[in-house]
C-alpha cells in the first residue's frame, strides 16, 4: 500500500502544480492518471500547440510547459501511478481515505484532490453489436504487451498513426495481421502509410481498405470479425484478437459515483478553498465548477494554491499555518 498526505487524481498541469504548492507546505503527493503519461489534455490533445497565456512565457508549447512543471516539482519527489484509473474511494474511521484503482493499486491518503480535467480519457469504441461481450476475451483497446499476440491472428481497425504503427510492429510477432480502414488511403504519417502499403504488397499485412466494420463473432472467445466493402459484400476475417485504435475521448467515469455534487459533468466547489461537499476532498482545474469559472490553466494553478492552504489542517492537525512567501523559506525538500 502507498502512503501519502495528498492523493491527486489527474496528472494534468493543475494536478502537477498542486504537487509544488503542497511541497512548499511539506505535504507529500502521490498522483494517479489513467493515461500512460503525465500532462493531461496538454500532452494528449495538443502537445505541439503554443500557449500564450502562461505568465512569464510569451509563448510555450503545451509539452514544454508540462516538462517544465515536472522539473519544478522534482525537489518534492512526488510518486506516480500511471495507466490506471481511480475507481473507488473509501473513508476510514480516522477521516483519511483509501483510494483504489482498476488495477488494484491501493493508496492511503489524508486528503484527496481531484484534478481530473474533462474526466478519464477512454478509448473511442466502434458501434458494433456484441463488442462489450468480447472485451478482455479478444477485444483490446490498446496494445500493452505485444508478446501477447505472438503467433495469433490480429485484426487492427483505424486509420491514424497508432493503427499504422502497431500494424507494422506486430507483423513480426503475430501469425497474421489484418488492418481495416474505412477509407481508401491513410492520412497518418506518410512514411508509416508507405510502410504499410509495402508490407501489404509483400503479403505480410492483409489490408482491407474502404471496409466498414459491421460485426464480431465468437463462442465465448473472439473468432472472427465481419466487414462490408463498397459493394456491400460481407467479408469475414479470422481473429484471435481485435484491436480497434480510434484514439481517446474524455468521459467523467467513476468520479460521478462518489457522492460529490455534480453539475453538468463538473464538481461543484466552494471558492473559499475549492473544497467539495465531502470533507477532505477538493476539486481543482477543469473538473470543478463555480459561478464565473474559467477553464484556463492559470485559473487551475490559483485554485491549487488556495486548496493546499486549506488541506494543511488535515495533514498537520496540530500545526498552525501562517502564510509566508515562497522566497522566505526557499524550496526546501523533505
Amino acid at each position, binding site marked *: 500500500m502507498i502512503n501519502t498526505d495528498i492523493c491527486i487524481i489527474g496528472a494534468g498541469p493543475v494536478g502537477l502544480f498542486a504537487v509544488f504548492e503542497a511541497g512548499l507546505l511539506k505535504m507529500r503527493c502521490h498522483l494517479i492518471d489513467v493515461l500512460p503519461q503525465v500532462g493531461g*489534455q496538454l500532452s494528449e*490533445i*495538443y502537445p505541439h*500547440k503554443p500557449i500564450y497565456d502562461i505568465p512569464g512565457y510569451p509563448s510555450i508549447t503545451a509539452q514544454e510547459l508540462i516538462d517544465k512543471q515536472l522539473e519544478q516539482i522534482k525537489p518534492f519527489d512526488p510518486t506516480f501511478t500511471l495507466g490506471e484509473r481511480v475507481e473507488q474511494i473509501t473513508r476510514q474511521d480516522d477521516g483519511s481515505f483509501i483510494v483504489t484503482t482498476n488495477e488494484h493499486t491501493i493508496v492511503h491518503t489524508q486528503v484527496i484532490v481531484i484534478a481530473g480535467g*474533462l*474526466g478519464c480519457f477512454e478509448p*473511442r*469504441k*466502434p*458501434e458494433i453489436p456484441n463488442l462489450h461481450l468480447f472485451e478482455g476475451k479478444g477485444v483490446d483497446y490498446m496494445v500493452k504487451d505485444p508478446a501477447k499476440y505472438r503467433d495469433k491472428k490480429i485484426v487492427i*481497425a*483505424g*486509420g*491514424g498513426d497508432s493503427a499504422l504503427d502497431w500494424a507494422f510492429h506486430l507483423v513480426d510477432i503475430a501469425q497474421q495481421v489484418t488492418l481495416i*480502414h*474505412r*477509407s481508401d488511403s*491513410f*492520412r*497518418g504519417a506518410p512514411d508509416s502509410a508507405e510502410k504499410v502499403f509495402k508490407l501489404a504488397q509483400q503479403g505480410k499485412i492483409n489490408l482491407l481498405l474502404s471496409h*466498414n*466494420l459491421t460485426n464480431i463473432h465468437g463462442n465465448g472467445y473472439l473468432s472472427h470479425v465481419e466487414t462490408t466493402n463498397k459493394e456491400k459484400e460481407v467479408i469475414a476475417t479470422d481473429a484471435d484478437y481485435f484491436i*480497434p485504435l*480510434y*484514439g481517446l*475521448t*474524455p*468521459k*467523467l467515469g467513476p468520479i460521478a459515483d462518489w457522492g460529490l455534487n455534480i453539475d453538468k*459533468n463538473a464538481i461543484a466547489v466552494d471558492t473559499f478553498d475549492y473544497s467539495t461537499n465531502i470533507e477532505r476532498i477538493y476539486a481543482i482545474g477543469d473538473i470543478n465548477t463555480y459561478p464565473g469559472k474559467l477553464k484556463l490553466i492559470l485559473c487551475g494553478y490559483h485554485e491549487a494554491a488556495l486548496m493546499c492552504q486549506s488541506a494543511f489542517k488535515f495533514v498537520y492537525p496540530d500545526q498552525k499555518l501562517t502564510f509566508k512567501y515562497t522566497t522566505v523559506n526557499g524550496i526546501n525538500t523533505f
Partner: protein
Amino acid sequence: MDDNLINVTVIDRDGTENILEVPTDINLSLMEILKASEYEILATCGGMALCATCHVEVIEGLDLLASASDQELDMLDTLPDADDQSRLACQLYLQNCNNGMKIKIKGALQS
C-alpha cells in the same frame, strides 16, 4: 427570408428534427451556432479540429460546402463512425448557398 439568414435542418441524436435559422454574416462556425441553439455538443477543443466531438453527418448539401482541410480529414479518420458524409461542425462556416442543408449530430457526449 432575410438575405443573410438560411435554413438548416438539424437532426439530434435522438432523431428529433428541427429547422434552425442560421445567420451567414456573423462569422460563427456551425459548431458555435449549434451550441448557441442549446444543442448538446462537447466541442472540447473549442473549434480547433483537435477533438472530433463536434462530428456531424451532412445528409443534404454536402457538395455545397467548402472541402475539408487536411487537419479536419486527419481528425475524421480517427472516428469509428465517420463516413463519406462526415464533417466537423467547427470547421464549417456557412454561406447563403448552404440554404436547405440537412445535418445529423453525431459527436460523442460525456457520461
